């Protein structure tokens, strides 16, 4: 709000106060003053949310960032801990090359500048799951800076308009994860498992370029897809492989940013959107009531859908950052030509070599799908969203040589719909890392060949039955099932002729209507034929036969 307006507001408040303070009914006065001051101070229409994210992505590596102990989820407690991870005196950090390469690759995929020289620092804080009393991180000069993440939202009434957005990436830094604490409130003690202590993390800091939960969720989803495509992070939020903290504030556009609250404890993308939207609304409500937003850390409670103050005094945090004395600067090289003489090539991290290994990123993949198959942009999102589905779609196309726009409908509606209905996780990445494992083997494109004719002729009833049979008896060849259960598409012309004849004979009124020019009635007859054949008649054939018989 411009200064002059503030002055006026203040003046009004003073006048109002002087005027009303002599009045005996003080509660009433206060209420009235609140309302007036609210009307003067803020325009509720103009307050908008500002969201920045900090994302901790666990690096997909075999061993930890500074020690040779393995990385694993749900192993017996303290079984993946080395002397260094337990901070025994005399142990020293030895940096994992894979973690450096993963961070560089992620930086390149996010259009960052990779710093040729970066430093490690110690960040001190006192907590039982951090046995050293400090975390090794990169505060002064991180490995990658100044990038951008392009993401898209589906907007419009039908949610089929693709809106492109960008969020700037401030930096990517390498750092250690902490251990895990299990609190036993009854006996007031904490159990410490150091299996996660020392696992390599990439902390990605995003600039506050987003304005609502939906945008933040879309950005995180896109980042998740990118990291999974790169293989630098598995991105499973439920297992804590990706942890998101949101910095949320509200302000009037054009004005300086408001006081921000940091929302932690968000463990799914859906909750991220909800937590942010709740927090924006909470802050707007506070300001509209004339209150002040506190700079604080809040936790998201997924049960109530609310954010709750964690009541820590943020002003009192002092991390006592200092350069990590046990690690010289981390140097990466632009290309092989820039390697200094005498360096062990296996030791060198070469940026251009990593750039060459970059896979096709989700955004590029979606564009390619739309361009080469002529499918709708929103379908390209659906395909890319489920790991392995693009490969599956392309295999089906190759195997069947069918029109892509027909196959896409089948893959995105029937197949995905069915998988969801049966509550079969579409992505089973944790079980198998090969992309194709997501589709049960009974639905391999080769076996599907049998169905695609049925599918592309929209015989949904038959299809669903075939699906169900296939889940009931996995491993059985689909063709065999169709024959056994008599589920195949009825394409026998003689059989169809006799069924059609029966329908025509028993419905003289409808036949008359058609002959008098009401062609729509033909659909009713077609429905009757499908009823007879349990929806498995080849509709193209049926239509032809009926037209012939009613002409």
């Amino acid at each position: 709000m411009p200064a002059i307006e503030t002055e006026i507001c203040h003046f009004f408040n003073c006048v109002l106060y002087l005027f009303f303070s002599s009045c005996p009914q003080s509660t009433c006065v206060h209420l009235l003053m609140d309302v007036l001051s609210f009307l003067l101070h803020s325009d509720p229409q103009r307050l908008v949310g500002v969201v920045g994210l900090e994302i901790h992505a666990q690096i997909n590596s075999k061993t930890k960032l500074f020690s040779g102990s393995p990385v694993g989820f749900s192993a017996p407690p303290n079984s993946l801990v080395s002397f260094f991870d337990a901070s025994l005196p005399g142990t020293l950090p030895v940096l994992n090359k894979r973690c450096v390469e993963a961070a560089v690759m992620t930086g390149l995929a996010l259009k960052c500048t990779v710093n040729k020289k970066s430093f490690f620092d110690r960040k001190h804080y006192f907590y039982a799951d951090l046995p050293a009393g400090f975390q090794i991180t990169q505060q002064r000069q991180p490995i990658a800076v100044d990038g951008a993440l392009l993401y898209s939202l589906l907007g419009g009434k039908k949610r089929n308009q693709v809106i492109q957005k960008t969020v700037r990436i401030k930096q990517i830094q390498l750092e250690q994860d902490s251990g895990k604490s299990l609190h036993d409130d009854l006996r007031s003690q904490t159990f410490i498992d150091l299996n996660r202590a020392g696992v390599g993390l990439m902390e990605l800091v995003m600039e506050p370029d987003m304005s609502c939960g939906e945008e933040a969720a879309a950005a995180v989803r896109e980042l998740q897809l990118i990291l999974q495509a790169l293989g630098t992070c598995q991105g499973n939020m439920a297992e804590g492989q990706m942890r998101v903290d949101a910095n949320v504030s509200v302000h009037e556009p054009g004005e300086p940013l408001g006081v921000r609250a940091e929302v932690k404890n968000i463990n799914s993308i859906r909750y991220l959107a909800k937590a942010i939207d709740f927090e924006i609304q909470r802050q707007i409500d506070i300001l509209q009531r004339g209150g002040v937003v506190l700079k604080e850390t809040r936790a998201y409670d997924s049960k109530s859908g609310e954010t709750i103050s964690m009541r820590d005094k943020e002003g009192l945090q002092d991390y006592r950052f200092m350069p990590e004395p046990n690690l010289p600067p981390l140097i990466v090289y632009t290309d092989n030509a820039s390697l200094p003489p005498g360096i062990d090539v296996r030791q060198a991290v070469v940026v251009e070599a990593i750039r060459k290994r970059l896979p096709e990123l989700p955004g590029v993949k979606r564009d390619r799908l739309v361009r080469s198959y002529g499918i709708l942009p929103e379908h390209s999102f659906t395909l890319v969203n489920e790991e392995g589905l693009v490969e599956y779609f392309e295999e089906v196309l190759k195997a069947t040589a069918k029109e892509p726009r027909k196959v896409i409908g089948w893959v995105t509606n029937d197949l995905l719909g069915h998988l969801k209905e049966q509550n079969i996780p579409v992505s089973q990445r944790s079980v198998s890392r090969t992309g194709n494992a997501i589709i049960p083997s009974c639905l391999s494109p080769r076996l599907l060949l049998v169905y695609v004719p049925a599918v592309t002729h929209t015989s949904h009833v038959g299809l669903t039955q075939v699906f169900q049979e296939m889940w009931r008896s996995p491993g059985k060849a689909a063709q065999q099932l169709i024959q056994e259960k008599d589920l195949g598409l009825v394409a026998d012309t003689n059989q169809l002729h006799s069924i059609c004849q029966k329908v025509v004979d028993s419905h003289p009124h409808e036949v008359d209507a058609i002959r008098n020019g009401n062609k729509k009635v033909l659909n009713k007859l077609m429905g009757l034929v499908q009823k007879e054949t349990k929806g498995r008649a080849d509709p193209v054939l049926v239509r032809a036969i009926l037209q012939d018989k009613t002409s």
Partner: protein
Amino acid sequence: MATYVQKMSVFRLAAKPTNRGLSRFYSTWLTNAGTSVTTGDGSPRTRTRRFRVRVRETTCTLSCRAYNSKVPQFPTWEPVSEDRLPPCTQISADLVDKLERLALVDFRTKQGLECLEKAIRFADQLHVVDTSGVEPMDSVLEDRTLYLRDDEETEGDCAEELLQLSKNTCEEYYVAPPGNIPLPSREKRAAMLRDSEF
């Protein structure tokens, strides 16, 4: 920077407790570093270079336990006159409160405050050093190559060995007190301290 390097060397010494004449080296080094900082008279560049060189030499001397002639036999220093120092730092009650909370130490007595003020005054001498145009030094290892390890499992699976070092364990977990408990407010703490004196 100087303080930082000192810490490093002290750590080195502390890691070798068998070193004979430890306390002598300890004091020599500390005062020596102080002298080199406060009495340098050349251009900032040469001064720093000399300082750097001395750091390396001294570390080397310490680690090979030889009596190097470049290390002064006796501590020497020149006091820095008060007028060259910045104004004394005033410590507000709020700052004391913050420091007490961070350090989990009570020092709100006259004596405690004096001690803190003296420590700050001592550190103020560093302001006299002209460091313009000098690139800060992070570590004595900064010109070394950082060794990069292959991503192969070499350690771990020693829970039993680790847990037996801990005083308090349960099954395969370390047991710690409940999470950090926020300190009571300053007023409450003052009241508690008053009560505890009785």
